[in-house]
């Protein structure tokens, strides 16, 4: 058992921090705050370009796919650090879709999409959820029918977040309506600009836009199919396991904790001297360490060549519920000021991060598989309880 980090990871983190120091300017932060879900802008793009030039988003992939064959710990360190600073790195395309294409794609698909993903030329919106297939995802009804060498897709997806700023949709569709529901689903890569794809916005209380996407006789070539026909459920499960790990970094929560302490020290010196307040902060810090423990355990499983199952769900449940608890408590400590948004200017503590996180916190508890489903997965897969 060894909880220490080898020198190579420490050195790498210093490199990441040097890059962060170069790019994380007040101007970039303003640009990011205004960019919303697009995460685009001249400064953000420049950062993303430099990330790509260094090859950091693909350094853990095998050399034959353009990677550097490095230990997954490098990606763990990179993502924790970028999450801490709130810098973009391609999120779900990198943490969820890329691993699935790596594991299930053909050599042609890997050659076509993997470099494009890490260059930022291709990005994916996740097309799983439908109006009548939320948590019961396997009951999805969007159809894909073989027509000669093509597939023709008809149906409707909802909460296709980022579809309006992505180049492609990672789409689950039914290819065998007569098979048991888990065994008739296939995965497709659908260009967003394919004829017949329509995107309509839905604005959410989090301030982020999501979408409904409609597929009206959308024709894609046969190589849009990823993995075997009717084996899509296993691919989504694989992708969701990776996604859950990607959904549970500690960095972003840790930063807000640090900023809260800094704010209290500066603006509320009497309050941070209060023993009752300090005790609540201490409890929050302990729970953050529990989050770090669960996230690092997942990192270790992946770095050892495994795929986390119950552990991924544990980290997802803990981090999403901690996000609510932490920001709600921070707001309570700051009273009415805790509810001020970024639009309030310098009156808003932490530049409005607390109320913004409070508004977006519910998403993580149901997104990526509801926490109820996650707890069931922990029980069934992690503990082996009966069905």
């Amino acid at each position, binding site marked *: *058992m060894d909880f220490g980090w080898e020198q190579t990871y420490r050195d790498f983190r210093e490199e990441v921090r040097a890059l962060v120091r170069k790019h994380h300017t007040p101007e970039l932060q303003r640009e990011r705050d205004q960019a919303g879900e697009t995460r685009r802008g001249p400064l953000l793009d420049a950062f993303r370009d430099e990330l790509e030039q260094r090859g950091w988003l693909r350094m853990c992939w095998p050399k034959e796919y353009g990677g550097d064959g490095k230990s997954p710990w490098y990606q763990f360190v990179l993502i924790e650090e970028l999450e*801490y600073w709130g810098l973009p790195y391609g999120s779900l395309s990198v943490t969820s879709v890329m691993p699935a294409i790596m594991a299930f794609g053909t050599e042609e698909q890997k050659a076509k999409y993997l470099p494009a993903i890490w260059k930022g030329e291709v990005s994916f919106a996740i097309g799983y959820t439908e109006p009548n297939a939320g948590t019961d995802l396997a009951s999805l009804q969007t159809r894909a029918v073989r027509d000669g060498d093509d597939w023709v897709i008809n149906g409707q997806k909802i909460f296709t977040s980022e579809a309006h700023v992505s180049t492609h949709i990672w789409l689950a569709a039914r290819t065998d309506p007569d098979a048991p529901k888990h065994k008739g689903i296939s995965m497709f890569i659908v260009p967003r600009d394919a004829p017949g794809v329509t995107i309509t916005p839905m604005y959410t209380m989090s301030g982020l836009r999501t979408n409904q996407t409609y597929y009206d006789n959308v024709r894609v070539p046969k190589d849009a199919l990823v993995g075997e026909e009717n084996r899509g459920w296993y691919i989504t499960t694989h992708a969701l396991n990776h996604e859950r790990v990607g959904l549970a970094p500690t960095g972003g929560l840790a930063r807000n904790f640090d900023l809260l302490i800094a704010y209290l020290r500066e603006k509320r010196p009497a309050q941070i001297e209060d*023993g009752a307040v300090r005790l609540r902060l201490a409890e929050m810090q302990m729970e953050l360490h529990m989050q770090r423990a669960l996230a690092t355990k997942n990192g270790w499983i992946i770095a050892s060549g495994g795929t986390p199952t119950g552990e991924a769900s544990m980290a997802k449940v803990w981090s999403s519920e901690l996000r609510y608890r932490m920001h709600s408590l921070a707001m309570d400590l700051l009273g009415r000021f805790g509810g001020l948004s970024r639009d309030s200017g310098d009156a808003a503590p932490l530049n409005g991060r607390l109320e913004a996180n409070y508004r977006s916190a519910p998403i993580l508890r149901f997104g990526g598989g509801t926490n109820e489903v996650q707890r069931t997965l922990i029980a069934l897969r992690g503990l082996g309880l009966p069905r």
Partner: protein
Amino acid sequence: MDLALSETQQLVRDAVRDYLARAVPFDRVREVERSGRHDEQLWAALHEQGWLGLALPEEAGGGGGTCTDLAILLEELSRRAVIVPVMETLAAARVIEHGAAGAKDILAAILAGKAIVTPALLEESDRFDDIKAAVRDGKLSGEKYFVDYGQVATHHLVAATRDGDIELFLVDASGPGVTIEPLRSIGRTPTARVTYDGAAATPVCGADGHRALVQLGRALAAVQCLGCAQQALDMTVEYVSQRVQFGQPIGAFQAVQHHCANMATLVEATRFLVYEAVAAIDSGAATERQIAIAKACASRAVSEVTTMAHQLHGGIGIVEEYDLYFFSLRGKERALAWGSAEECLAIVAKHIEEPEDWLPMGEAAAAGRPE
């Protein structure tokens, strides 16, 4: 970063686990509980098997074991609820090893299975830093509470002041001027209030040694919490998988599954933080805050996990012939020992304004702070 036990550690863990399952039936644990003493037979066996020595450093004449090795042994002992002063004696030995030459003879006696040493730190104030016991001219006077295994130990390692500073002293528990009065704690393991009235006291070490002992004891008590929580979780998973109500195992009900998932998550996070803290003691990098966080987490987790274990067991779980109470009662006592969750969180609170490295890599923490 490698969270797996080494091959040797796995071998030791399995050997201890198998031995305890074979040699210590839970009914014997009940008998020992009633006796108010410790399990002398098991203590002798642990010594014969070499497990006590294995968890001691070579300089102390032991097998070169680290704190992590000791933690692995302690977790197994906790999972069998056995009543032996392993944690107390070996924590004391690790401090004595770095102490004054005059006190080191006791290490050989420990290795020979002839001495049991237990720390005597707390007083009526229940605070590690509030010590009224004092040594003058080599004679100790004062009153200590919660001297775990004090009634079966041959020696006490006592915190007392000399010229105003806290030091540790070794005291022969059977010598004149030592009065031992058993206390009955929720954990049903021996503990005592001890009065020292001019007892002969051998100096061992100063305030640094005292602090080190508190940190080590706290981390090891967290291991004991973890062992109790893990065992309660495992028993619960087994029970709900076979207990049938409404025509199905109750473990197939989602309400039950979700409780189990919450318990498992607490155990998982606790396991990481506790072994991380113990490993940090081994590497010399441990901080007061880190150990306090691990113990606060373990204390909270064991209370929560064992309480939910009872909830899911229902009536059978509270029956004295059923084995669950060992872990809920011992677990709660260990949660209180060496710093309760509240006490540990107060320590974390004390340090709350100090910068912390969120991906701890053993460097200057401030580097990670926002500018």
